[in-house]
Structures are given as C-alpha cells and as structure tokens.
C-alpha cells in the first residue's frame, strides 16, 4: 500500500509544518548569504550571488510543491483547520515564532542602545542589507527554537 495514501490529516498537517520550517531555515540562509555578500570580496561575492539564487529557486520550488500537492486540493475550511490545530508541532511552531520575535526585538533594542560601540564600527550598509540581516536573525532564531522544541519527542512506538 502506498504510505502517502494512509497519512491522516493530522500527520499531513505535521509534515506541512516541518516543510514550512525547513523552508524558513533555507530562507534564513539566503538572507545570511546576502549579508555576507556585502562584506565579501568581488570574486567571492559572485559565488555567493549564484548560491543565493540557487537557494532561492530551491525554496520557491519547495513552497510551490507544498502548495500544489498539499494546500491546493484542500477546501478553505480544511486549510483553516490545519493552521488552527493544537497538536504538539503546531504549538511548538507558535512558540518558536513568539520566541524568535521576542529575541529579535531584544537584539535590536540592545544594538540600538550600543550604537556607538557596534553600529559605528560597521561600514555603512545599505538599508536592504540591514533588513536582510534582521530577517536572517529572526529566521535563524525561529529555526533553532523550533528544532529545540521538537527534538527527541516522546516514547515513540
């Protein structure tokens, strides 16, 4: 029997969340590379640019597969139910989102308070690079938190 056909809606919801979390981590890598591109030399920057584009295509491909295989066949009620489930992974996802937002906010406050120590030593960065750095921080914090909350589950059978 095909294993995919036996998955319950709750298992599909769990796998969807894991895929979304993986895509968010890949997006964090893209933003990290984008920031690194600013600091890298010209030859390295070309390589990083290619890596960013390849990763971006990968993430968009993953999300497209997710959308067309999992979400598009569902009714709007089913989609809403999937997002509103209160299972282990759904709660871990929300906790990771909350933690990443809180830690990013704290990091930005600390950086702003220490602007003379930190910001003035950095070369003038374009606004786009600064935004990418903040997004990368938030997404990395989300990914780390999600893995921490979901690692080594219960007594599986």
């Amino acid at each position, binding site marked *: 029997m095909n294993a995919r056909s036996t998955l*319950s*809606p*709750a*298992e599909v*919801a*769990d796998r969807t969340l894991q895929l979304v979390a993986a895509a968010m981590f890949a997006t964090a890598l893209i933003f990290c590379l984008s920031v690194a591109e600013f600091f890298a030399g010209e030859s390295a920057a070309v390589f990083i640019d290619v890596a960013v584009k390849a990763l971006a295509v990968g993430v968009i491909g993953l999300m497209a597969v997710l959308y067309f295989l999992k979400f598009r066949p569902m009714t709007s009620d089913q989609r809403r139910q999937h997002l509103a*489930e*209160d*299972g*282990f*992974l759904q*709660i871990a996802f929300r906790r990771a989102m909350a933690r990443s937002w809180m830690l990013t906010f704290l990091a930005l406050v600390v950086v702003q308070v220490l602007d003379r120590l930190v910001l003035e030593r950095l070369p003038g960065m374009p606004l786009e690079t600064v935004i990418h750095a903040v997004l990368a921080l938030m997404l990395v914090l989300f990914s780390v938190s999600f893995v921490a909350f979901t690692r080594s*589950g*219960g*007594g*599986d*059978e």
Partner: protein
Amino acid sequence: MNEKLDNRIRVFRAEHRISQAELADAIGVSRKTISTIEVGRFVPSTVIALKIARYFEVPFEEVFFLTENV
C-alpha cells in the same frame, strides 16, 4: 506548589490494545502529539484531553491528574 499534569494514557492503551497511531487517528491528532502527551512532555489542550477521555469512555480525571513536581 509546583504541579504537573500526568496521565494514564499508556495504561488505557494497553487495556484497549491499541497503538499510539491508532489512538491518534481516532481522535484526529498526529502520533507525535500522542507520544509527547504520554511522556508528559506536551500538555494537551482541553479539547484533545477530553477527546482522549471520551475515546476510552472514562471520566477526564481518570486519564489526567495532577502530581506534585519534585
């Protein structure tokens, strides 16, 4: 006082001879959710806890109870 929610899901499952996956399917959650509730790692929502008790046809407090956290 520091209390935690404990449960007898494993005992009830053994009595009913069902696996975590079967219980999960019956109440509409994932197996991971059941396994983490069983070991006390995840505190379920009221709805999930009531569905589990209803599945085993016992009062809620026979499945879930508070214990003092040492």
